[in-house]
């Protein structure tokens, strides 16, 4: 129909724009449901709908455009007082909003409309045509009926100090030209450039020092070094500024959750209140992009297995409405996100039993209750029946653990049976730069994320014991298995190395020692992603970094070092025939 083919770039812009408008729609629906027909909320949503309609038409999605027009109609009627929204109407509108979102996401992916909205359109049309009760009778859904979801305090949802109107909608409208939209790829590029600047600056410094050695050039060298020092200062600030620009408030992730909790609560017949705290806490965009999914899993978990049905809660002396608190704070150089519920808690006894059943634990293992509960993150340990004995739509917490570890983060759980459960996630402020320990394996240099390094010690042959064919080291009271990186990497091992070192790496309370030939010191490094073609190698690398002299150094993926079975095979395997 149109005389152009929507390019991927156009579709991307359309989609990003549309997502914002859909958020505004969700917000408006939530506000109306909670507080009754607020004329300002309705007006605030008409603008985004109008733009969305226009955009959809321009890009050629006629079906979507017509449907948005239908939604506009509904709201126009509400505004005129010709239509009142009861609980059922809200359900249909929410369902309609979800359908619209689906249709838009699909269409943007495919470049053409895939899903028909005819059914939803007819549904809304019927709603418009039904007799409208006068406004005064249509009490807001909040008044007489116990709401399945409400946001405790206005300040929890909107950053504005007072007033019920979500300022998210306002900020969409302020549209001041002092704000610029930047592609995240541009920020990555900036960071790369800063990285290169630092590399060149280092070279200049070295040159300056070399020059200083030459007689007659000393003064020139001094001037050069002084100028380079200035450059260093500026490039440092540049780096900090770019890192700062990449940090966004975690609100971007949190804002979908009120809707999610509302829907889940309705589905499960429970009454749940979601409280959000610390949405202004800032974190690197790269992390924001990845943390959403694990958080959704954990929230679902709380709703499914944590919060009890209202009747049961009352029987146990609790309020019928359960609470989930999602909060984010910054502590020194981490961000801590907690998800706390006042639900049923996790029974350590049940977990212990299931763990023994699955072979994760021996019956006589003396693990404390607190440690036993951490086992719910183990691979293959489905929380479904394990925790409550109720089969439901459980989610693999091992997947959550993996996602968080991929972000160089940690997650723990605290629980009191009958009282509640708290998941604590700790994340670095930024993914892009980490402290690393540089080591040499044979003649090659690798980097190990310092956050995972417990200690490093010089290896003396005598202390290494072989147990069941595996080399181990005794450190204080622990037995730590050893991995010879040269063998693991398939590199020639140094015969009778004068010195070897074991770098002890920890994950939770597990330990493994990797054997290297040299310790080269600690350094802050900028992590660069590895193309997926390379990460498919059998030894996992978390990324790579570029040294001052332009050399590439690979960064070890620490989590993979604990994958016992896989590594044992590689470790035992002879290295392939090496080229001359």
């Amino acid at each position, binding site marked *: 129909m149109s005389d152009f083919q929507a390019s991927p770039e156009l579709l991307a812009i359309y989609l990003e724009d549309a997502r914002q408008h859909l958020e505004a729609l969700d917000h408006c629906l939530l506000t109306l449901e909670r507080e009754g027909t607020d004329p300002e909320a309705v007006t605030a949503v008409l603008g985004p709908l109008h733009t969305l309609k226009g955009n959809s038409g321009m890009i050629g999605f006629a079906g979507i455009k017509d449907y948005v027009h239908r939604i506009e109609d509904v709201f126009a009627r509400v505004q005129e007082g010709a239509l009142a929204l009861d609980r059922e109407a809200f359900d249909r509108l929410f369902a309609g909003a979800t359908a619209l979102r689906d249709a838009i996401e699909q269409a943007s992916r495919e470049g053409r409309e895939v899903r028909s909205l005819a059914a939803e359109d007819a549904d809304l049309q019927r709603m418009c045509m039904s007799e409208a009760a006068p406004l005064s009778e249509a009490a807001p859904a909040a008044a007489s009926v116990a709401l399945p979801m409400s946001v405790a305090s206005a300040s929890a949802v909107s950053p504005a100090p007072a007033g019920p109107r979500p300022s998210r909608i306002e900020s969409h409208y302020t549209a001041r030209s002092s704000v610029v939209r930047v592609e995240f790829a541009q920020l990555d590029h900036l960071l*790369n450039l800063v990285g290169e600047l630092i590399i060149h600056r280092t070279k200049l410094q070295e040159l300056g020092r070399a020059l200083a050695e030459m007689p007659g050039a000393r003064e020139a060298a001094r001037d050069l070094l002084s100028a380079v020092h200035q450059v260093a200062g500026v490039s440092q600030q540049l780096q900090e500024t770019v890192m700062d620009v990449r940090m966004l408030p975690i609100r971007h992730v949190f804002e979908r959750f009120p809707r999610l909790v509302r829907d889940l609560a309705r589905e499960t017949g429970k009454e749940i209140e979601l409280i959000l705290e610390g949405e202004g806490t800032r974190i690197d965009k790269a992390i924001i992009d990845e943390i959403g999914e694990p958080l959704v899993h954990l929230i679902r978990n709380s709703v499914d297995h944590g919060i009890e049905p209202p009747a049961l809660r009352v029987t146990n002396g609790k309020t019928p409405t359960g609470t989930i608190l999602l909060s984010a704070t910054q502590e020194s150089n981490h961000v801590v996100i907690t998800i706390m519920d006042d639900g049923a808690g996790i029974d350590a006894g049940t977990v212990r039993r299931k763990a023994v059943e699955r072979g994760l634990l021996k019956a006589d293992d003396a693990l404390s209750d607190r440690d036993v509960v951490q086992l719910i993150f183990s691979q293959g340990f489905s929380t479904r029946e394990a925790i409550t004995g109720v089969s439901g739509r459980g989610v693999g917490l091992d997947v959550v653990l993996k996602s968080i570890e991929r972000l160089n983060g940690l997650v723990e759980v605290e629980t009191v049976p009958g009282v509640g459960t708290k998941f604590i996630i700790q994340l670095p402020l930024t993914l892009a730069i980490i402290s690393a320990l540089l080591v040499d394996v044979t003649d090659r240099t690798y980097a190990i994320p310092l956050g995972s390094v417990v200690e490093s010690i010089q290896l003396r042959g005598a202390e290494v014991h072989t147990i069941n064919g595996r080399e181990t080291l005794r450190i204080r009271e622990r037995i730590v298995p050893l991995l010879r990186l040269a063998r693991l990497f398939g590199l020639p091992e140094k015969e009778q190395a004068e010195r070897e070192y074991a770098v002890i790496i920890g994950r939770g309370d597990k330990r493994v020692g990797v054997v290297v030939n040299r310790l080269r010191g600690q350094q802050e490094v900028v992590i*660069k992603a590895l*193309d997926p073609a*390379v990460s498919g190698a*059998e030894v996992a690398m978390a990324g790579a970094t*570029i040294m001052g002299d332009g050399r*590439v150094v*690979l960064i070890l993926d620490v989590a993979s070092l604990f994958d016992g079975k896989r590594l044992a095979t*590689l470790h035992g395997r002879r290295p392939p025939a090496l080229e001359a």
Partner: protein
Amino acid sequence: MFPADAETGERRGRIELPASGLAADILALADAAAVPATAPTRPAPADALPVPAEPAPRAHNISFFAAPVREERKAAEATEHLATFFLASEEYGVDVRVVQEIIRVTEITQVPRAPDFIKGVINLRGRIIPVIDLKRKLGLGEVALARQARIVVVKIRERLLGLLVDGASQVLKVPVSSIEAAPEEVTEVDATAVRGVAKLPGRLIILMDLGRTLSLELRDQEGEAE
């Protein structure tokens, strides 16, 4: 300030306007149909203004507009723009649009336990890209790191990959008429990677389908089996 929407009453009874129009025409007709533009009451229902019959003006009027793009496109279809390189003594060609640059071989950092055709990674102006030994990939042996060896940096689906080859040749346009399907005797390379052969005077260029050749590497992460 003008209210952006002065809708009162039913939406259905609105003015209908054609897809586009000039003020002069529309206003004349609007006056004739006595449609009040600023009155708060709604206009007479379903007043349709007649559609101006004129089609868009023809090409002769575009004295100061650029010539239509269509003609250029037609000419382009007649040739293929290739970047060519050598593997052993055979010449291969790929669509020049996927080639970002061709560089000399710099220090390649090996990746432990990677598949044998992944030579390693290199630092390309701050970006880390994998280097694939194209001969190993195609089962033709191995690229020697001699002085003429080159890395052809290609961009496919937003990913940058380096292809290690024995030597670079040139960038050239070949007429589509010179391209034929590859005969089996031409090369030992897996037939699916080759999409044709360009026959030029004294020379044969094997046209490679990079998407197919690198299909394993280009596969999305989610598709990878454990």
